[in-house]
């Protein structure tokens, strides 16, 4: 088992074997979570602070539950965005929090790189719960776990990621993870929602669903933010649904056993047909939510082990003096 990271800031710094380690441990936590008594003691006595500079219900709840099931003292900090400028709050809040000796800090922030900046200022392990358009590592890990459980493997699969790639940290983390695990990644979306230079990441880019989905084993749909629908990036919601919304007809181009994923929350009738989203034979959207808790438990457990080892070394060092 290998997991050396001190923080989980993104998928980019992780080695494939570290990703496998998280998934293997998460598999065990899935079993635990299905029992009636769901307690483990991996984070017993530790303090976990969830700091969300951007509104989130699902991710925050998932992290909170994961921490509580592992025995941590979990605190949710509602960070007001209005009063002070965001950046100033960030450093000040980081220093304030650090003085409270948390062990795990879960952070979501609207600016790319903000979580990295914060990690430099604190002594605890930091988990990125989404920073701007940069990364959302636990989402990619839970997607990988979902795929591995549905398909039996997380390599040599053809995965199509569809929709607003440009503004999506979920797409970015998934793209990096799937690449590291040697999958074939296709990006499908209108060119206005495709980040420049993305073809250099070693994926194929399509602006036509029927072509891009051809033979795909996994179809990942992304949420289209309301503020992008106003004619700035796409002409209208209905034209977007017509060309890029996933329905049974478009899905027919994918492999017959292809699974459908969505990070939620869904816009039914915009990026995905409501009936399809609820089709338990194709959609694994509910499983994704379940895997989310398990993956976050695994990630926090591994980071806590490294933290203990580090502090243990520090203590031993101190005793020698």
């Amino acid at each position, binding site marked *: 088992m290998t997991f050396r990271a001190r923080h989980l800031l993104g998928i980019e710094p992780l080695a494939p074997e570290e990703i496998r380690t998280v998934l293997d441990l998460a598999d065990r936590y899935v079993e635990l979570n299905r029992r009636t008594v769901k307690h483990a003691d991996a984070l017993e006595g530790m303090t976990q602070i969830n700091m969300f500079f951007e509104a989130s219900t699902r991710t925050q709840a998932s992290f909170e539950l994961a921490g509580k099931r592992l025995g941590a003292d979990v605190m949710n900090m509602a960070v007001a965005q209005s009063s002070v*400028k965001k*950046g100033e709050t960030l*450093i000040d809040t980081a220093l304030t929090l650090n003085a409270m000796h948390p062990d795990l800090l879960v952070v979501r922030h609207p*600016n790319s*790189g903000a979580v*990295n900046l914060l990690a430099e200022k604190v002594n605890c392990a930091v988990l990125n719960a989404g*920073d*701007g358009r940069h990364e959302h590592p636990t989402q990619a890990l839970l997607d990988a776990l979902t795929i591995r459980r549905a398909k039996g493997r997380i390599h040599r699969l053809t995965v199509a990621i569809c929709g607003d790639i440009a503004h999506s*940290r979920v797409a970015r983390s998934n793209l990096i993870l799937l690449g590291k695990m040697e999958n074939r990644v296709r990006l499908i979306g209108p060119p206005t929602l495709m*980040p420049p230079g993305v073809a250099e990441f070693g994926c194929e880019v399509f602006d036509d669903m029927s072509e891009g989905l051809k033979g795909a084993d996994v179809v990942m749909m992304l949420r289209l933010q309301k503020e992008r629908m106003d004619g700035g990036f796409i002409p209208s919601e209905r034209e977007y649904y017509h060309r890029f919304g996933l329905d049974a007809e478009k899905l027919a181009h994918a492999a017959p056993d292809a699974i459908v994923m969505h990070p939620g929350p869904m816009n039914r009738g915009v990026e995905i047909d409501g009936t399809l989203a609820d089709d338990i034979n194709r959609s694994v959207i509910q499983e994704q939510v379940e895997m989310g808790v398990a993956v976050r438990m695994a990630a926090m457990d591994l980071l806590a082990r490294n933290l203990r080892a580090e502090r243990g070394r520090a203590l031993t060092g101190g005793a020698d003096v």
Partner: protein
Amino acid sequence: MTGGTVLANARLIDPEAQAETIGSVLIDDDGQIVAAGAAPVPEGAAVLDCGGLCLAPGIVDWGVKIGEPGERHRESFRTAGLAAAAGGVTTIVARPDTDPAIDSPEVLEFVTRRARESSPVRIRHMAALTKGRAGREMTEIGFLLDAGAVAFSDVFRVVEETKVLARALTYARSLGALVVGHPQDPGLSRGAAVTAGKFASLRGLPHVSPLAERIGFDRDMGLAEMTGARYHADQVTVARTLPALVRAKANGLDVTAGVSIHHLTLNEFDVGDYRTFFKLTPPLRCEEDRMAMVRAVADGLIDVISSFHTPADEESKRLPFEEAAPGAVGLETILPAAMRLYHAGDLTLPQLFRALALNPARRLGLSQGRLAPGAPADLVLFDPDAPFVLDRFALNSKSKNTPFDGARMQGRVRATFVAGRQVHGAPLPEGPVTVTA
């Protein structure tokens, strides 16, 4: 002293002749160069030994931000002057993007006096092209010229209204005033923090296409052709702007262009893990663009290299990348950074000093930048090979936002002279009385 001073035994870098020779420079008591090369030493002259180091015209750094008025906590005329002296910059051409902007003769007179009182090197001033740099009404270009403005610029704020810019250019032309533009399409670049491409996508940062520069440049060239004005593009940083620059010069437009030393020595990947000291205006470009700019300086297509010294305090840089202030200090690092290009074999020393001293002085109507009789003895003596590791806290600038912190560099300034007077470095040893060429 009556017979003047001789700086002897130097490797002379002559950007005008594009030549390097071993020789000496004779300076009279008025601080002017009397002779350069193998001139005989006159009776009674003090001879100083340069020890075979390089002696070049002092750098004319065009586009330096000084925090006076308004932001003295970031940089003052005194600290900028000390930094310049330490960096071999003998003339600072200051930017008008202060608070308030230098947009009236009264403000210009104030900063001119402040600069004269506190800086060991020369400071000349650009004035704003439009009042408050708001892009609506032109400034009093005539009065400002009389008060000593060397050029007119709204700096990084593009005058969006073409009619305003056309009129300002037309009016400036009638007075022979030089207008400095920032070639950039403001709509495309609004909110951008990095150049579009693989790196921007990987880091998830708001980005601008490199072509936004070409689009802005094309517009400005159209207006330069329409008005016949003297125009200087502050920074050309993208390969795809170059053909337009070639065309403009070939068509006889009175156009020159500059580039920052940072865009010649760094690329977009240097931002790395959201390092805000590498956030610049315009953002760092890809390696191909960097190499194209270096070649353009070698060819003389790009005329000027400057530091675009932009002091920013720690508070404004310790923010998420998108929100951090852009800009880097450069007065003290422009020479060692330029030496990277020399040691890489990309540019010769005469080519470098053509862009660092001769061309900017010429374009701004200053007599500096030459190693010739009659020119002011503004000189830099430097060792191009001396290695060192840069420590940002050792800089003279009040602000320490350099992208070269911890970098291994080569090239140290040994002495800086302004009007024949040494303003930086330990006194040079007295040399032999007879000087051999």
